[in-house]
């Protein structure tokens, strides 16, 4: 089932066009990765769909729907927090420093209409499912008392509390150690397999893309230059921009 369909999305700031004619189809349970070097437009594309670009950005689009609902001109922002969940690079930036993490997840459940009496139990269950050890005690912690990996699990829990059909994950493991990254990737993989959540993944780590993505879209200077299945794009890259992205991964013969 098609969840998200976008045709010819363009974004400009003044005279400068930062994204040109971007098109995307995202199906239920599918992971599509947007890759590209810094400034290629991958985060711009995601933020435009979420309605999170600054007001000075000019957005043009031919067609954009999520679950059949027109996204523009209202953008996806009314869907954020329940049908669409977001996970960003810096887990601590997604959390309010002076509120206990359990209360923050409770609030995400509140937004999606879960009755107050059930929220705490659901919070603990969700943290448990995400592999947070001693979840009940940890839900009373403040963000600064948790490691980066645990904070990212809390951020994922907040995104999942709304029972989203789609996750937008922008460099979700870039700030984490590789051993911790593995645990977060295992969670994301499990969410797509068990909950059939679709994921729009933004990453420049080709190992992460290889492990999670079904399809890959390569952006360069705001334009899509290559797209295809993950094995086609990563194993036989055609465009020089894709080859450059894969080159660093191979310098040390990263196994």
């Amino acid at each position, binding site marked *: 089932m098609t969840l998200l369909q976008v045709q010819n999305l363009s974004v400009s700031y003044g005279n400068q066009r930062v994204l040109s004619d971007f098109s995307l189809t995202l199906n239920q349970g599918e992971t599509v990765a947007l890759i590209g*070097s*810094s400034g290629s437009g991958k985060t711009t594309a995601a933020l435009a769909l979420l309605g999170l670009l600054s007001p000075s950005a000019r957005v043009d689009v031919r067609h954009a729907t999520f679950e059949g609902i027109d996204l523009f001109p209202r953008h996806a922002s009314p869907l954020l927090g329940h049908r669409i969940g977001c996970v960003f690079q810096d887990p601590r930036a997604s959390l309010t420093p002076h509120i206990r993490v359990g209360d923050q997840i409770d609030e995400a459940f509140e937004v999606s209409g879960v009755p107050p009496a059930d929220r705490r139990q659901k919070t603990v269950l969700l943290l448990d499912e995400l*592999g947070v*050890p001693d979840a009940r005690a940890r839900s009373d912690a403040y963000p600064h008392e948790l*490691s*980066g*990996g645990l904070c990212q699990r809390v951020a994922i829990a907040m995104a999942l509390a709304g029972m989203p059909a789609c996750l937008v994950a922008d460099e979700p493991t870039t700030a984490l*150690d*590789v*051993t*911790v*990254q*593995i*645990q977060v*990737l*295992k969670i994301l*993989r499990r969410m797509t397999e068990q909950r059939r959540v679709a994921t729009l993944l933004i990453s*420049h*780590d*080709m*190992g*992460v*893309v*290889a*492990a999670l*993505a079904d399809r890959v879209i390569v952006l360069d200077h705001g334009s899509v230059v290559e797209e295809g299945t*993950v*094995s086609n794009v*990563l*194993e036989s890259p055609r465009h020089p921009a894709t080859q*450059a*992205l*894969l*080159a*660093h*991964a*191979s*310098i*040390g*013969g*990263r*196994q």
Partner: protein
Amino acid sequence: MTSILEVKDVDVTFRPSGLPATRAVIGASLALRQGTSLALVGESGSGKTTLARAVLGLIPRDSGEIKVFGDALPKNPREVPLAMRRRMQPLFQDPGASLDPMWRVGDLLMEAMEVTGSVEQAQYDAEISIWMNALGLDRDLLTRRAHELSGGQKQRMALARALVTGAKLLVLDEPLTALDPPAQRAASELLLNLKRAHGISSLLVSHDIGLVRFLADDVAVMYRGRIVESGCTEDVLAKPKHPYTSLLLASVLPTQPLAARGRLASLPEDHVTEQPLAGCAFAPRCLHAIAKCHIDTPSLSAVPSGAGHAVACPVVV
């Protein structure tokens, strides 16, 4: 070959007021040979950056000796003579942070030479040209300010600033993390060229195993403040002995989709735990731990038949 940096039994403890003390580096010893690169790898909180900062004389150490180019580094950062600081230069993760945003980068390079007295004023221009060329930077960039440069250009300019001082030892703390893959590739090749063609030695702090494999001659793996394995890069990365080193290397995902998925599925669920009160710090996460791992703290001992390869694990040796 002579060691230009020797670290022996160094301890660094942080004592924040009102909080319990943290032993960030415990009994660390290492030696960096002239013209080579030694990598410190490990997860955040393992003490690798703290050890690098102690080497730079930026933070005090509690005990142990550090010798830079044969001279003893004072324990107190305030007592480190300028002449010692000149011979080693840091390069940090955030390339912009090393460049004053108000200054044209050309003036920053001049100031670095003026402060360190590395070359005569008449030679400033020639010295700048040498390093701008070596780093593939266009001279037109000298009149720009930091915000007018790309991330890769900023990182190379920060390198140029370090090199015009005449330093022969660089302390590179996650030098590529802030760059995107094409810029990472270019920067890795530059760093290798600095070592090979210019004899620049480096202490590399990184968790990018690809960069370590590419640049470093020797590796020391840190876990919770201790060096748990060390040796030449080939031995440690191809034949890891310590269970933590093995886990770290297995966690670097291949870029072939089938292999990456297989690896992700095969790695065990693993929780980073509190520091145990006794025994090996990795024991609570370790699949090979035996009873004594929870009691005794293992010390580094030589791996039989591994030249210079040492590991702190009684189970695998």
